[in-house]
């Protein structure tokens, strides 16, 4: 229970700047931007239909809230440089990844990189297994901690919201590409 309270405390004691105010060079991440980041992560997972990978037969990834819902830890570098930040989280089925993200002036957060590339060691967005152990431990110790929540069976509206926001963020929706080819023509 204590870790959970600590995570939420981080969110609530974070700066109360309005969206976009922290996007300048060397700024601190706000609670609004952390919330936008968790939304972007959840949206991408639902858009790529990765949610099932968070519920392997052996037990859920993260802290299971129920048989079909789990909370997953997120580590975020509090510093933004030119609107760019870094985060570490478990993105199944790839595993734990270091991911860059961009905070736009309107507060929207856009994750960098393309999940389908598999986060190889050559890319800035890479699996954390490719990061030096000492550096990884330092990042997890020093960065802000938060949670995002994944449902095994997201509602149709939740998925459509994710699809819509993904298209706003990147101009592309994997769900639409694979499931609704007629809609993208």
């Amino acid at each position, binding site marked *: 229970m204590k870790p959970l309270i600590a995570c939420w405390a981080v969110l609530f004691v974070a700066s109360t700047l309005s969206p976009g105010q922290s996007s300048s060079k060397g700024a601190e991440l706000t609670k609004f931007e952390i919330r936008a980041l968790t939304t972007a992560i959840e949206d991408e997972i639902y858009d790529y239909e990765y949610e099932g990978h968070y519920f392997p037969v052996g037990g859920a990834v993260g802290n299971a809230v129920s048989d079909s819902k789990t909370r997953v830890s997120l580590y975020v570098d509090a510093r933004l440089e030119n609107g760019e930040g870094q985060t570490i989280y478990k993105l199944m089925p790839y595993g734990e990844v270091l991911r860059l993200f961009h905070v736009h002036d309107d507060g929207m957060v856009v994750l960098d990189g393309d999940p389908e590339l598999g986060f190889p060691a050559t*890319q800035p967005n890479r699996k954390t297994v490719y990061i030096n152990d000492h550096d990884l431990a330092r990042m997890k110790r020093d960065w802000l901690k938060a949670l995002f929540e994944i449902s095994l069976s997201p509602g149709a509206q939740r998925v459509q919201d994710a699809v819509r926001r993904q298209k706003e963020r990147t101009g592309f929706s994997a769900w639409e590409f694979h499931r609704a080819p007629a809609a993208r023509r």
Partner: protein
Amino acid sequence: MAFINGRYYMNPAYGRAIERARLEAAGLDREREEFSASRSDQDQNQNGHWVTINGRHVFIQDAHGKGPEYDDPQNENEARLANVVYNETASLRANPKAKSGAPGSPEDLHNARVAVARVAHNVLQSKHPERVQAPSELSSRAVDAINGGNKDAILAHNDSLAAARAALAGSGLGGATQYRINSHDAQKNDKRQARCGALWPVPERTGRHTSGDRGTLNKKGCE
């Protein structure tokens, strides 16, 4: 020679017909729908051309005849190598303020792509072709962008293909089999270089950075 759904055909029209029949026979409704739709698109609008992306023969519409044209790979080796280079470097942009040939310039970006292509080719040709690098097939997002006529995506793929051809025709960069593209990398002391993306092909045996094929690149949005 056209590369359609993973097969080569001397005659593209014949290939498309064969592949369409094969898909229908296999009952692959979704692929058939996409294939039929692509054909339908072509029938409705002749301002475009067929290209092969990841074994899929797709129709690319030219925006009223403007926009860059997609350069079609001529064989599977070119296609796979170009895809690796594209996947590794598509997010990089040349700095419009950089002088010709200077770090960050389009020439510099192309040279870096050639370096990536050479290393990727070495890996693909090595005894361990399963070594992890970016995949040799395009992602859904890349296919969607190129198919949709996205200028940046098409130019990046064309340059990646040119780099792949140069690498296939040239030397193997001294057997190098490693490189890394950095951006905002906390592990690097050189913040400017790390943030703006330095591309370092590294010879496998020595672990030293090569001097001849090092490109300093600007990642998108980084000047």
